[in-house]
């Protein structure tokens, strides 16, 4: 039987020879398997082995798109509303309900980092003395971009709605434009799935400006933005000649964005865990192997180089 060196250890330079199909070879194979496979199982079954999601912080690049849709409810009577938007097709539908407001907006980069931090939006709706606003609905459209991991570009919406039993003079809102994720973002690449307009401003049809349809289509998206303002302030007491004012400050906060890690990131974190457990197994099974072979538990032919008194002699013997 052709002998093959199956194991050697450096301390004694002893080689143990046995056949490929011998018990020793099988035992060695078993030990190897027991060394490398259980760490994987231990690491996996103790949770958190594969990194299935990860998070990063980024302040999004948000710009107001200067697209507004505005409906003011004047009372419960039929046709008592005023509306205006930056979409001409929408304005065409309104006929005499159209009232052009005075808009003043300003985006501010407070920390001078090149990214806008908040939007100051003011809408002044002129009113006749007999008209009273009891509720408003306002859609502001933004372009929302993330760059750190995958480049994510979308057009998003901030929806403001407030109704009050008391006619108002001003609505003050101040809140965050928050990212709402139903799905993990990619770790690389360009994602323009939602880079479509929230409101189809070119459509002439009334159903395309139905707020229920707009909201329904928007919330079909897996990634959206939400204007969260827990404390809108409705101010009453409008002077007869004063306009109704919507005063909004919309902050663009830093977001924690969840994403799906890439292959190498997953492998890297798995490798760290695997190797740290593997080291123990290597040490344990290395000892076991040494024990088994040294003590001839498995029948092998130990080929020990003749231990010479002096290394010179050993060399000579080897050469001869």
């Amino acid at each position, binding site marked *: 039987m052709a002998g093959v060196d199956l194991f050697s250890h450096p301390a004694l330079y002893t080689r143990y020879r046995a056949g490929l199909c011998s018990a020793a070879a099988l035992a060695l194979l078993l030990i190897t398997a027991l060394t490398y496979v259980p760490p994987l199982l231990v690491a996996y079954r103790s*949770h958190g082995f594969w990194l299935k999601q990860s998070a990063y912080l980024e302040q999004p690049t948000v710009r107001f798109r200067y697209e507004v849709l505005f409906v003011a409810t004047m009372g419960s009577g039929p046709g*008592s509303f005023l*509306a205006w938007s930056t979409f*001409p097709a929408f304005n065409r*539908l309104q006929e005499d309900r159209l009232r052009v407001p005075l808009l003043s907006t300003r985006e501010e980069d407070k920390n001078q980092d090149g990214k806008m931090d908040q939007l100051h939006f003011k809408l002044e709706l002129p009113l006749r003395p007999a008209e009273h606003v009891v509720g408003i609905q306002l859609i502001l459209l933004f372009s929302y971009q993330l760059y750190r991991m995958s480049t994510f570009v979308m057009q998003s919406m901030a929806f403001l709605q407030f109704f009050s039993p008391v006619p108002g003079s001003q609505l003050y809102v101040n809140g965050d434009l928050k990212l709402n994720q139903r799905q993990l973002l990619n770790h690389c690449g360009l994602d323009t799935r939602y880079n479509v307009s929230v409101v189809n401003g070119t459509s002439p049809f*009334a*159903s395309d400006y139905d707020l229920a349809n707009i909201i329904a289509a928007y919330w079909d998206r897996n990634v959206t933005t939400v204007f969260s303002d827990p404390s809108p302030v409705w101010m009453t007491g409008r002077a007869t000649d004063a306009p109704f004012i919507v005063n909004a400050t919309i902050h663009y906060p830093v977001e924690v964005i969840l994403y799906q890690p890439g292959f190498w990131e997953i492998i890297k974190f798995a490798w760290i865990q695997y190797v740290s457990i593997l080291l123990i197994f290597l040490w344990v099974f290395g000892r076991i192997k040494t024990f088994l072979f040294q003590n001839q538990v498995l029948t092998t032919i130990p080929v020990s180089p003749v231990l010479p008194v002096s290394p010179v002699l050993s060399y000579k013997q080897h050469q001869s």
Partner: protein
Amino acid sequence: MAACGGLRCGDGGRAAALSVRRFPALPLPWRRAGAARWRPGGRRSAPGARRSAMGVTGFGALLMLLLLLLLRAAPCPGDSVFQPSFIHMSGSRVNSFFLGNSSGVNFSIILNPRDAETGKLQLANCSGNRRAGDWKLDVTPGVNTSKVTVSLSRTLELCLPNATECCPSPLCMLETLQVVACRGSVMLAQLLIQAEIFANSSFAGNVSENATIIPNQAFKPLGSCPCDLTAGACDVRCCCDLECTPDLLQLFSESCFTGVFGGDVNPPFDQLCSSQSMEYTPEWFPFLCVQSSLDNTPFLGYFYHGSTSTPKVPSFKIPLQTSPGKPFTGYREGDPIITEEDEYFTVPQQSMAGQCVGNAPVAYLHNFDVKCLTSLESYKEGLPHDVRINSGTADFIQQNVVYRAITDRSKFITESENLLAAEVLCQNVTFAEHYKFTWKDGNIEQINVTVFLGSLCDGEILTQRFTVEFLSLNSTDGEDLFENPGYQVGKPVKAANLNASDPLGSLNIWQPAGRGLCASATYRPVLFGVDSYSGCILEVDINEDCSLLRGNVTEKLNALIRATHIGKRDNSSYSDVNDWVEIIRLDPFSSNVSTGGLRGICPDIPANLNIRIIFAKVGAVQGIPQQQILAVQISYSTVLWQFQCGIGCKNTLSILPITASVQFIEVPAQPPPPVTRYRRIYAEFDCNKNEVCWPQLLYPLTRFYTGEPYSQCLAKGLFLAFLVLLAAITSNPWFSKLWNR
């Protein structure tokens, strides 16, 4: 009060005002040139300066230096003084303040008060008036301060082709003015103004709306004259600027900008054979030089890094409204319907938050049924019915209008306030409009309109109804078009009376209305896949007989189910018994428990009807699952009715709510494979229930990982495995032996 020098006398902090419009400073060489040309008190003083006026463009102007003139000490009664008393003027208007009592003071302006020969300031006298040459003097009197404004009464605009009053040549005004304030013939104060005004170089012509066309930088130099920085005006020292006239060019022709910036955009390059004269000559020079025209320079496209565009900064831009296009090839689904005048065909529709908009276009093949509230003051007539409509092939069809009078006004009218009948204003208005479009292959074949008219009075609120329906001409049997034979969610469940002569049956639940009494409730079909619950209220008398009540309730519940069989599929045929499943009825437990003559208590009233429909997905047609009803069971649950009333209550009616519920239960079409208890408890292979399930052991290499395409993950995984295998093999002791053999 000997010498009353301006600044000494004046209260500098009080009203020091110097308002001079400044023009851009000229480059230094010009100043020097101008200085050289102008000698103080030289021959070319005033007339030379008056060469003024004209100006094609810009900056071109002349400069001069004026002799500093000494202010003569003047008699200074009181504290009257100009503040400031010396002004260097470079705009067309200058202000000063006369401090002191201005009553009876005459202000006059004197042009060129210098002596022509000596160059010294002439002694001013009070004989002047408020105008001199092109100059005008305005005084705004105040209490102790008078504002004195000296302005140039002519423009120094550059000459445009049609302009009449402008500078004919690029020049400047250079004059000395003196303003004196006199009371009678006594001079109180004097103001010296040194005017040095250049022709207005700011561009005042029409700006062309056409944007400059930027050539493709890969093939043409971006600009043939990079120093031409100002549109429509001559840039100083830019000799390649085409807007510079020869007059202007000769002013700076010696100091033109050189190099690329000066317009030499195609400099000769090293490799050119003709550029031998360059000081640096490579050793290969005469042999490998390039014969080329200068247009083919290697600098071409040097600064071109692909197509770059300026970032679009959003702003308030109202785009132009597009008019509806004219369909010639027929309508497609969702196209707006067009009238003969190329306008939208409009019917009132709901938009925004439920408000109705009047002139909303109608989309082809989009049905709707809307209700709009209106009152007499807000009522508006819609599109007239004689409007002809584009049928889709550029011919026009007339609407077939049927007018009807409304029979039951109360369905449409809510009276908000009761007015006296005598003063109520009424008008005949449209109550409802029903449009039926008959279409075929993208063309409208026919339009039938039914208009319901009625009278609407002041103070009433009308609910108008508008429906638009598109009917296909060639699909009388619409069910055949629908290829999936199974039920779809939201479709009515088919029911049949297979034993009766008329097999058409119905399976309904109540649609409560008004107070919710059973008498006013209508029916609504049971829709597939929609679990529903509905009910109505039965009014029961205290003396009601229990068996009669049971019979009454059972009859009301049974009225919902007028069928013996339910269709398995949406297209079940009435002739085939196999297409139907029989309704399993679990009749209520009929009790004969006597209440012992107690009034107001009835046990075991079958007040709740439960319809359970069991269905399964039996297949899929074109990816849409095909669903089939397997069984229908109807059961009743009973309640104890008790007359609810306190002691001494007068009413003799109590209520009994009766309800019907529909529940759809999905079962697997085939019984699922049995799951061992071990699997069920530990869920080792169910990744939805177990985070560390076995199928995800090698998570990045499985289909569960969606971060990257599976093929990429597999490739990377195999690559890793190959590396590991290679390391394992080469590290084995017998490998080296094998290798050395």
